[in-house]
C-alpha cells in the first residue's frame, strides 16, 4: 500500500521540480542574452574612429581651402573638432579598447602631431603653401594611423560579434533544449493529471455503481418488508381476534377491523395515536369483571393477561405483551363459548358434588339422628312384647301412642333430613315469582291455627294493599310454618303469637313474634346452625334442623331470616324477602 502510494506522489513532484528547474535555467539564459545584447560599447567604436578620420580629413581640406583663398574656411574650428575626437578616443572605455588592440601609442602620437600643428594654424593664409604642406605632413601619418585603427576596430567588432553570435546560438540551443524538457515535463504532468482524472472518474463510476446496487438492494429489501408487512397486516385483519399495536412511545399505531367489530363503542374512543394507558382505561370502562382493575398499574413493565366481561357481548381475554422493539401488542379474544362451557362444567360438577353431598349428609343424619327414635321404638316394642299381656288396655294404648309419636317423629326427621340433604346438595332451587306475601301469610296463619286448634296466632291488621315479594310461595309457606310452630312451641299456651308484615329499604319482611321464654344471647349466634338446640329448649322435642332449613330456604330466594330475642320477654323472627319490583329488575325477569 505504502510502496504503491509513494510513486503516485513522487512522479508529479519530480516532474514539477524538473519543470521549475528547466524554466529557471531558460529564463536565466534568456536574461543573460538580453544583457549581453545591451552592452554595446564596442559597437560605437567604429563610428567614433570614423568620425575622427572625417575630422582629420576636414582639417586637411579646410587648411588647403584657406590656402587657395576661400574665406569661409575655418581650419581652427576643424582643429578643435579633431582635437575633441582624439580626446574622446583617449577617454576611459575608448582608450582601454584601443589599448587592448595595441593602438595606445598611436593615439599618443596623434596628440603629439596635433600639438605640432597648433602653432602653425595662425600662419595659414592665402598662398601659404609651405605651411599647408607642413601641416599635411603631420596629418598624413595621423590619417594613416586612424585608417589602420579603423580597420582593426572593424575586424575586432566582427570577431566580437561572431563570438557573441556563437554564445547566443549556444544559449538559444540550451533554451530550446530546456523548452523541449519543459514540454516533456508538461506532457508528463498532463499525462499524470489525465490518468488521475481517469482514475477518479473510474472510482466515481465504481462508487455510482455500488450506490446503484445498494439502491436496488434497498428497493428489494423494502419490497420484501412491504410484502411481509402486507402479509402481517392481512393476517391481523383476518384474524379472529382483535389486535391493537402500540409503538415504542406507547401510542396506538394499528387497530384491526375485528376490534372495531368486537367493541364498536369502545373502539370509537380508541383513536390512532392515543396512549396505551388511555386504551386500558377505555377497556376498564367497558369491563365489569374487575380483573383488569387489579392488573398492571404500569402496563409497560410487564405482560398482561386477564379476562374481561363486557355486558351484552360476553367474555374477552385480554393479552398484552411487549414487542422486541419496545412497543406493545394487545390481543382481545372472544372466549365467551369457553367461559360458558366452563360454567356449564362447573355447574355439572357442582350438581354432582351436591348429589354426593346429599347422600353423605343424609347418611350422616340418618346414622346420627335415627338411632335414638329407633331405640325408643325398639325398647317400647320390647316392653310391649314382654309385658303386653299384663298391661291394661289404657296403658297399652298409651304405649302404642308413644310408639306412633316416635314413628311420626322419625317420619318428620326423615322429611327434614331429606330437605336438609337436598339443600346441602343444591338440589332445591327456588322458583321465585311475584306473589302477595300478605295472602301467603294469611293462608299460613289460618291453616296453622286450624291444624293446631288454637287461636293464638294474630296477623297484624294493616291496609289491604298487597305486599308484593319476589319469592317461591311453596318455600315461603314452609318457612312460615316452621317459624309459627316454633313460636307456638316455645311460648306459653295462653300467650299470643303475632305476625306482622311490612317493608323497608332492604325489602319486605314478615315478622313472627312470641312472648315466650326468649333465647340467650350466647345461643342466638348459633341458633341457625344445624342440629343446634338452645339450652332452654331441651324440654321440647326437636332435632335442630328447622331454623337451619328455614334460613337456607330464605337465602336461596335471596332473602334471609334474622332474630331479635330477650330472655323472658320473647323472640321475634323476621323473614326478609326481596321486593318484587327491584328483584325483578335485578334478575331481569319479565312479569
Amino acid at each position, binding site marked *: 500500500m505504502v510502496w504503491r502510494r509513494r510513486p503516485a506522489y513522487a512522479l508529479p513532484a519530480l516532474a514539477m521540480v524538473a519543470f521549475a528547474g528547466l524554466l529557471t535555467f531558460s529564463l536565466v539564459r534568456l536574461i543573460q542574452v538580453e544583457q549581453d545584447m545591451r552592452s554595446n560599447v564596442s*559597437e*560605437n567604436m567604429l563610428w567614433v574612429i570614423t568620425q575622427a578620420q*572625417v575630422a582629420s580629413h576636414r582639417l586637411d581640406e579646410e587648411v588647403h581651402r584657406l590656402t587657395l583663398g576661400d574665406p569661409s574656411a575655418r581650419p581652427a574650428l576643424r582643429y578643435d573638432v579633431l582635437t*575633441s575626437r582624439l*580626446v574622446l578616443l583617449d577617454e576611459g572605455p575608448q582608450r582601454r579598447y584601443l589599448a587592448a588592440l595595441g593602438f595606445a601609442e598611436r593615439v599618443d602620437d596623434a596628440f603629439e602631431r596635433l600639438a605640432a600643428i597648433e602653432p602653425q594654424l595662425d600662419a595659414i593664409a592665402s598662398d601659404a603653401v609651405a605651411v599647408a604642406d607642413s601641416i599635411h605632413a603631420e596629418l598624413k601619418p595621423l590619417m594613416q594611423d586612424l585608417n589602420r585603427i579603423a580597420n582593426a576596430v572593424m575586424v575586432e*567588432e*566582427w570577431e566580437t560579434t561572431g563570438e557573441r553570435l556563437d554564445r547566443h546560438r549556444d544559449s538559444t540551443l540550451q533554451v530550446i533544449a530546456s523548452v523541449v524538457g519543459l514540454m516533456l515535463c508538461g506532457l508528463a504532468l498532463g499525462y499524470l493529471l489525465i490518468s488521475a482524472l481517469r482514475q477518479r472518474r473510474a472510482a466515481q463510476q465504481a462508487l455510482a455503481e455500488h450506490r446503484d446496487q445498494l439502491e436496488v438492494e434497498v428497493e428489494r429489501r423494502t419490497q420484501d418488508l412491504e410484502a411481509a408487512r402486507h402479509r402481517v397486516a392481512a393476517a391481523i385483519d383476518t384474524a379472529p381476534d382483535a389486535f391493537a399495536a402500540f409503538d415504542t412511545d406507547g401510542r396506538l399505531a394499528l387497530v384491526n377491523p375485528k376490534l372495531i367489530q368486537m367493541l364498536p363503542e369502545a373502539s370509537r374512543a380508541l383513536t390512532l395515536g392515543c396512549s396505551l394507558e388511555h386504551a386500558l382505561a377505555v377497556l376498564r370502562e367497558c369491563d365489569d369483571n374487575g380483573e383488569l382493575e387489579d392488573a398492571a398499574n404500569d402496563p409497560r413493565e410487564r405482560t398482561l393477561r386477564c379476562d374481561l366481561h363486557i355486558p351484552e357481548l360476553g367474555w374477552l381475554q385480554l393479552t398484552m405483551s411487549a414487542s422486541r422493539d419496545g412497543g406493545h401488542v394487545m390481543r382481545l379474544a372472544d372466549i365467551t363459548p369457553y367461559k360458558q362451557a366452563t360454567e356449564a362444567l362447573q355447574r355439572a360438577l357442582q350438581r354432582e358434588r351436591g348429589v354426593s353431598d346429599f347422600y353423605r349428609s343424609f347418611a350422616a343424619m340418618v346414622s346420627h339422628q335415627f338411632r335414638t327414635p329407633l331405640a325408643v321404638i325398639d325398647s317400647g316394642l320390647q316392653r310391649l312384647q314382654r309385658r303386653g299381656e299384663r298391661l291394661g288396655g289404657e296403658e297399652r294404648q298409651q304405649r302404642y301412642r308413644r310408639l306412633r309419636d316416635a314413628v311420626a317423629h322419625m317420619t318428620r326427621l326423615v322429611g327434614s333430613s331429606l330437605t336438609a340433604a337436598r339443600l346441602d346438595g343444591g338440589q332445591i332451587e327456588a322458583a321465585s315469582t311475584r306473589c302477595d306475601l300478605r295472602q301467603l301469610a294469611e293462608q299460613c296463619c289460618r291453616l296453622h291455627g286450624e291444624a293446631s286448634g288454637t287461636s293464638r296466632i294474630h296477623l297484624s291488621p294493616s291496609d289491604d294493599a298487597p305486599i308484593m315479594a319476589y319469592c317461591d310461595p311453596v318455600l315461603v309457606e314452609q318457612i312460615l310454618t316452621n317459624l309459627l310452630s316454633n313460636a307456638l312451641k316455645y311460648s306459653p299456651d295462653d300467650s299470643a303469637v303475632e305476625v306482622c308484615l311490612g317493608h323497608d329499604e332492604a325489602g319486605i319482611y314478615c315478622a313472627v313474634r312470641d312472648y315466650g321464654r326468649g333465647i340467650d344471647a350466647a345461643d342466638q349466634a348459633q341458633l341457625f346452625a344445624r342440629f343446634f338446640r338452645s339450652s332452654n329448649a331441651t324440654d321440647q322435642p326437636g332435632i335442630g334442623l328447622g331454623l337451619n332449613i328455614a334460613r337456607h330456604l330464605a337465602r336461596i330466594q335471596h332473602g334471609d331470616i334474622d332474630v331479635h330475642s330477650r330472655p323472658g320477654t320473647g323472640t321475634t323472627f323476621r323473614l326478609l324477602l326481596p321486593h318484587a319490583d327491584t328483584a325483578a329488575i335485578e334478575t331481569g325477569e319479565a312479569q
Partner: protein
Amino acid sequence: MLARDDSDITAVSFRLRAAGLLAGIALPVAAAALPPPDTTPLLRVSGDIATPNVGEEAHIDRSLFASLPRQTLDTTTVVTDGVSHFEGVLMRDLLDAVGAQGDEVVATALNDYIIDIPMQDFHDYDVLLADTMDGETLTPRDKGPLWIVYPRDDHSELQDIRYDYRWVWQLERLEIR
C-alpha cells in the same frame, strides 16, 4: 548594427508624442523679451520660437546663459569612466526662455552631427544643457561649448542606445519644429 553609417542615425525620429501641448502650456509663463547678445553666442536657436533677438533667431551668449537657473547633475556617461558632475541649465528652462513651440528639436553640433530629439524628452526628464564637467568649462576641443546630458543614472529606461545618441556634444544650434 555592424556597419552603421550616418544616415541611419540622423534619419531616426523617436518619441513623437503630444509634446507640443505641454510646451504650449509652459510658454506664457517664461516668455520674456530676450536682450540682444553682447558676445559671440554659445548657441543659436531657430524655428518656432516666441522671443527672437537676432532676426528670427535667438542667440544665447554666456551672460544670457548665466542668467538662466543653474542646475547640476551627477551621472555616468557611455564615453567616460565613473560618475561625472555636470553644471548648466535645464533644456526645459532654456526652451521656455526662447518661447519654443514645437514637437521636436533638431540639435546640430560643430562636427555636423545632427539629431532629432522629441520635445517630450525635456518635459519627461530633467535633461541638462551642461557647460561644465567636473568643475571645468567645456571647450570645443573637448565636448564644449555645450553638451546635452540625460539623467542616465536616475532613470533606467534612459540606459538605452536609443537615448545615448541624443547626448549631443559640441552643440551649436537648435531648431524647433
